């Protein structure tokens, strides 16, 4: 298989404009003859469904949530980047492009990232027009903050609830199309398979989560906007229901999976408190604008936050400011996370488990006053207080890294089409724009860029090319076959009647992934982990215990089918991490480090996208490499010193 990224020729700043001009258009009167399926109602899915509905396509949109507004995008806190340069601090499309390619440690496509930077400005205009209440200055103009990995203020925000406000904007736009009859919404409906006929995606199989009914839906194209798979680690900042199943089942139907091992570990999360823990809570990265990260110079066992004030300045190690004087506390996430791990490995971690560092606001409160800090972070401080019982206005927060985002995902070309024609992936579900590390406030930008401004153009090209006659109905035997497969899978799960709960398996999977495929990875550990997961999988299919039936609301059954896929994905992540014997972005291979422990990238051997092809159950997957070409950005070892 030859991977064709379909990157248009020409100078970087003109590629997208030219490409848009060259794409085929669907005549306005013919748009209503095309059916499009959108799976997912997060930023990517809701914005795509709304925009395609506005254009006149017949859209069916699916979510397993009870409402589109529950999609995990709702939880994004900190903000969204855009190269508006409203602050007159030297920002530009080129700088956002440059920062994002560099931040991604040179493992993203230049052309995609430039397009992202170009449309970023339109996103803000669009959202404001929809009534998204971004933060404003007293003069009435939009306010910005700076975010990790950038030296300009280009992040737009809505207090600590940016994702919520952006999602509600896209949700509202989609609601308008639902009211217009152009979008049909299916809630509590989970997609369980993609149907491929004659090499093209023709529809999906779904399960109604209330009645258990398995159904077929056909369309001219299928868009997967199904989010990321951080929950492979069990504990992560993602919502409980986030999972990989939609992408994974597409992968099994021929869509290549790219860079699965690229995961982002977020430095500012509330540390684990006990075995009962079901998820980790992110404290927005924006906190690092004003909070200072430190541990004592010499370790103090079980140091409590309330005793931190007694540690004199001279005995504190502000390790990020010390090691990275120019970026300080605003170094990118992977760097901040790894350094927190190092100081904890040295025995200088704080809190009951020693797996935490302080994030201290006392200087900021002294400098700006409590009111200012409250206005910026009030809800985050309250949340922290509620969860931990500590009051961050009085004592430092305790934070520790946690899995947060997955840069890997379905491989897509410049048009966001996967390797299966007619099957697209948008938002966190694709691999496209963040390389080996995503910069803060860039996921929201990408999700909305894909949905509002890219897919409406690129999808039209495909539809115009195939023509509206090229559609397969749900009476085609492939739909029946796929439905049978899905039903069999469900019956198989229910028939095991073993002894261990789904959560117990999920937790075990998470521990393996975190230990061996987490913040730092090495060959021996990865090899061991692969074997452990294979054993876990075998045990799962022998011993999982799911009560209840197939034809009713059955949360355990839903989880089981997702965990089964996560285990398979876990194996592929390990294969990918083993293949990439370099350190880049969120992927740190111990074999590839400098003497002072910084990551060492290897551009000669690894400047490629690793795209994996499924070859059948328990068969090794086949690696395809898409070489990355850099014509504009000079590859340098990232340095934030």
């Amino acid at each position, binding site marked *: 298989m030859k991977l064709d990224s379909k990157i248009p020729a020409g100078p970087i700043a003109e590629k997208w404009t030219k490409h848009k001009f060259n794409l085929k258009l669907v005549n306005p009167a013919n748009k209503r003859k095309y059916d499009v399926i959108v799976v997912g109602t997060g930023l990517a899915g809701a*914005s795509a469904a709304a*925009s395609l509905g*506005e254009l006149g396509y017949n859209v069916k949109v699916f979510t397993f*949530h*009870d*409402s*589109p*507004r*529950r999609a*995990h995008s*709702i*939880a994004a806190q900190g903000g969204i980047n855009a190269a508006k340069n409203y602050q007159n601090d030297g920002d530009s499309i080129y700088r956002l492009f440059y920062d994002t390619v560099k931040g991604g440690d040179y493992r993203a496509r230049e052309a995609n990232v430039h397009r992202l930077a170009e449309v970023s400005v*339109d996103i*803000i*205009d*669009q959202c*404001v*027009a*929809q*009534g998204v*209440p*971004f*933060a*404003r200055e007293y003069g*009435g*103009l*939009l306010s910005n903050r700076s975010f990790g990995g950038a030296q300009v203020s280009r992040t737009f925000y809505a*207090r600590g*609830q940016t994702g*919520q*406000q952006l999602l509600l904007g896209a*949700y*509202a*736009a989609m*609601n*308008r199309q639902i*009211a217009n009859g152009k979008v049909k*919404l299916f*809630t509590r409906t989970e997609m369980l398979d993609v149907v491929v006929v004659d090499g093209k995606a023709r529809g999906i199989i779904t399960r109604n989560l*209330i009645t258990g009914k398995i159904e077929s839906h056909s369309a001219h194209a299928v868009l997967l906007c199904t989010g990321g798979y951080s929950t492979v680690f069990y504990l992560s900042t993602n*919502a*409980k229901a986030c999972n990989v199943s939609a992408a994974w089942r597409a992968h099994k139907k021929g869509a290549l999976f790219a860079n699965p091992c690229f995961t982002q570990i977020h430095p500012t999360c509330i540390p684990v408190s*006990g075995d*009962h823990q*079901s*998820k980790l*809570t*992110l404290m927005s990265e924006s906190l690092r604008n004003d909070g200072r990260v430190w541990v004592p110079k010499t370790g103090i066992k079980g140091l409590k936050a309330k005793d931190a004030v007694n540690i004199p300045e001279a005995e504190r190690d502000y390790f990020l400011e010390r090691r990275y004087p120019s970026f300080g506390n605003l170094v990118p996430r992977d760097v901040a996370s790894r350094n927190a791990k190092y100081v904890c490995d040295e025995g200088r971690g704080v809190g009951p488990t020693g797996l935490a560092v302080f994030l201290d606001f006392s200087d900021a409160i002294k400098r700006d006053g409590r009111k200012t800090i409250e206005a910026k972070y009030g809800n985050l401080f309250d949340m922290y207080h*509620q*969860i931990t019982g500590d009051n961050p206005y009085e004592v430092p927060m305790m934070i520790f890294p946690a899995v947060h985002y997955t840069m890997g995902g379905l491989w897509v070309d410049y048009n966001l089409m996967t390797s299966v024609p007619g099957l697209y992936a948008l938002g966190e579900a694709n691999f496209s724009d963040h390389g080996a590390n995503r910069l803060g406030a860039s996921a929201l930008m990408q999700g909305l860029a894909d949905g509002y*401004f890219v897919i*409406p153009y690129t999808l039209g090209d495909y539809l115009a090319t195939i023509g509206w006659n090229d559609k397969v109905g749900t009476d085609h035997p492939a739909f029946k076959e796929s439905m049978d497969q899905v039903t069999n899978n469900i019956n198989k799960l229910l028939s095991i009647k073993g002894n261990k*709960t789904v*959560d117990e398996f999920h937790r075990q999977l998470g521990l393996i992934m975190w230990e061996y495929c987490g913040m730092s990875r090495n060959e021996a550990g990865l090899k061991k982990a692969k074997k452990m997961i294979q054993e876990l999988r075998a045990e799962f299919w022998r011993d999982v*215990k799911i*009560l209840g039936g197939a034809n*009713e*609301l059955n*949360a*355990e059954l839903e989880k089981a089918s997702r965990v089964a896929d996560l285990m398979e994905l876990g194996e592929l992540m390990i294969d990918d991490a083993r293949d990439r014997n370099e350190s880049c972005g969120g992927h740190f291979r111990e074999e590839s480090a400098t003497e002072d422990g910084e990551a060492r990238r290897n551009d000669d051997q690894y400047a490629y996208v690793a795209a994996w092809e499924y070859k059948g159950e328990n068969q090794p997957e086949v690696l395809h490499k898409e070489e990355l070409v850099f014509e504009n950005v000079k590859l340098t070892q990232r340095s934030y010193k």
Partner: protein
Amino acid sequence: MKVTLKIWRQKSPNDKGAFKTYQHEHVSPDMSFLEMLDVLNTELIKKGEEPVHFDHDCREGICGACSLYINGHPHGPLQTTTCQLHMRSFNDGDTIVIEPWRAKAFPIIKDLVVDRTAFDRIQQAGGYISVNTGGAPDANEIPIPKIVADEAFDAATCIGCGACVAACKNASAMLFVSAKVSQFALLPQGKPERKERVKKMVAQMDAEGFGACTNTKACEAECPKGINVTNIARMNREFFSSSLSSYEYQVGGGD
């Protein structure tokens, strides 16, 4: 900690349903309320009893999925979401009664899970500004005074959980609907359609079978996001002015 749980169990929408009592011996004060139920569910499954169904997802107080009526209060004793409630808010030996939201417009699906799609249908009726993708003016073209933007933001933080309805003896959805109406009534972008919007949303609200508002303010007291009842007053003004002629409405406004 040990607690006694009285939980509403209902197999399906048509099942009658009843409380069932469970002794929970393995509770730690650091657990969230939902984690406490996770532990219960693991024990139930091991014993061969079907786990308790409840809606949840983000567990960060923002998605609005969690919705438990605990000891007579939506989301329990604190003014927060169920997922942000921790067991340290309870005492060893407490009895805790857990029910679903109860309202005609929110039919029970199973155990503690209810159908809140009525909320989505209200939003579909008019909770948007009619702009298509592309062609929006520059975001800074219309300055909005910070105080207005902040007020609109406060209204916009509603998470659509439905606690306001569950708290209200009339099962009124006024707080939820007024939050969206207010957000758009305050912002210049929302003004062109404000008249239509409030009419359509209120009509849908009535059609869904939510009750009337009698100003008990129970909704505000229980809303985990602190949505203010002044939004209801604003919506009433909006609704009133929408029934005036468009000329009067434009002159008289409702700001």
